[in-house]
């Protein structure tokens, strides 16, 4: 197999892989929100409520929020 053929295969499978990753990411975003693991749309409020003394919007990741509660 010469270098040009190799480049061709590499390019084809790379494209398939990257398209796969992109679709996986879309599914991941929606699924994690549906399961209640994340609330991405809440993060949009970071720009609106941006006073230095306002409560951080933080992530809605229940695991990390729980940890934070415990550490208080």
């Amino acid at each position, binding site marked *: 197999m010469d270098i040009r053929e190799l*480049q061709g295969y590499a*390019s084809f499978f790379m494209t398939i892989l*990257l398209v796969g990753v*992109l679709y996986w*990411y*879309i599914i991941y*975003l*929606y699924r994690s*929100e549906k399961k209640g693991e994340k609330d*991405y*749309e*809440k*993060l*949009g*409020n*970071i*720009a*609106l409520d*941006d*006073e*230095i*003394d*306002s409560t*951080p*919007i*933080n*992530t809605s990741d229940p695991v*990390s929020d729980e940890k934070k509660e415990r550490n208080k």
Partner: protein
Amino acid sequence: MQSNAALEYDYSVAKLFTYTTILFGFLGMLIGTLIAAQLAFPDLNYLLGEYGTFSRLRPLHTNIVIFGFTLSGVFATFYYSAQRVLKVSMAESKFIMFIGKLHFWLYFVGALIGVITLLLGYTQAKEYAQFEWPVDIAIVIVWVLWGVAMFALIGIRREKALYISMWYYIACFLGVAMLYLFNNMSVPTYFTSGGVGSIMHSVSMYSGTNDALVQWWYGHNAVAFGFTVPIVAMIYYFLPKESGQAVYSYKLSLLSFWGLMFVYLWAGSHHLLWSTVPDWMQTMGSVFSIVLILPSWGSAINMLLTMKGEWNQLTENPLIKFMVLASTFYMLSTLEGPIQAIKSVNAIAHFTDWIPGHVHDGVLGWVVFMIMAALFHMAPRMFKREIYSKKLLEAQFWLQTTAVVLYFTSMWIAGITQGMMWRAVDEYGNLMYSFIDTVTVLHPYYAIRALSGVMYLTGFLMFAYNMIKTMSSSRELTEEPQFRSPMA
């Protein structure tokens, strides 16, 4: 830990960069207008001896608007908005304040040296990478300082989730760092010629086609990570904040971000269509340029949808007008670019005036509009005064919008005319026109472009006047506005 009661955001570095944005914006656009006039009226080349010729001034124009105006705007908005979305003040860390100020002063001195060396004719002769190696080293140091300030601020943040704007600023930092280093690898000719050459003149470490490929990998992505990514960072913060509407879809913003990051870096070879670089690489550049429409429009549509149900603000608030038009011009130029990257279209467009036409609907309509709107939004918060004049703002908007339209329409016509004339052959296959024939035909369009330059520059002066009056003599505010910026 100290109490947060009296803590305030510290805008001292953001203010300094605001001043240089205005200064370099004026200088860069003044030179741009002069060289546009030189193309229409060549006698204007002889005003200042060697220092006033088109070839000497053109790199000054591009470098001042890129590294002077735009980067100052990027740094100003970063030092303003990063504190706010991370909910941490620069005043909380002496180290960050020191780095921020050092960043500004080294940047300012470096920029002045850059301007002087270009004016004196020191150049690497690579587009947008003209600075010689000592200036390159200064730029690397300044860039690293920005990175230190950025990650130090992120390190002490209260808001754990990084807002989408921060992702874009980080991408700008990393992207430019990588591109700038690789494309500016050069050796002074003194060392390569046994002492005959000059210390101050260097040549690229790459040669021929490889040099061209690295150059346009850099050149196109300088547009990506200098003119697109940080400006998207701005609009994701300033449009929601000014309108009081959260971004329409945060998920779409994340998807567009990763899409842009994956795709943009592969599109640069479209600058080398029909040249001696490998054919597959040219095709790849075309394909990735077309795919690039998706993430670009993802962000732009997200911004327009953020205004859903609030379109009345477009008529009431000139800053919303600036930002919505910026977003629209972003859509226009990110559709136009891929069209030009199609091989058959490029056969007509390549080397013609359609290309600067495309560049300028992007930079004048998108980059400059967004930076000016961002600074207008920041001014009442930084200087605790309302914006000096709404009427002036409105007049500036319409003057500059007309100027952009005149610029790109004249260059569309000029470019396509030029492309067609260069290709035209008679029945025997001989070229029908010589180069000077095209120049004669294009003269009116060059004159229109120069006029649009004068109009845009006048608009920029109105912006500068409005900003200076806002800083110095506008009505003082007792409390910080939450969303809409107050104006007289």
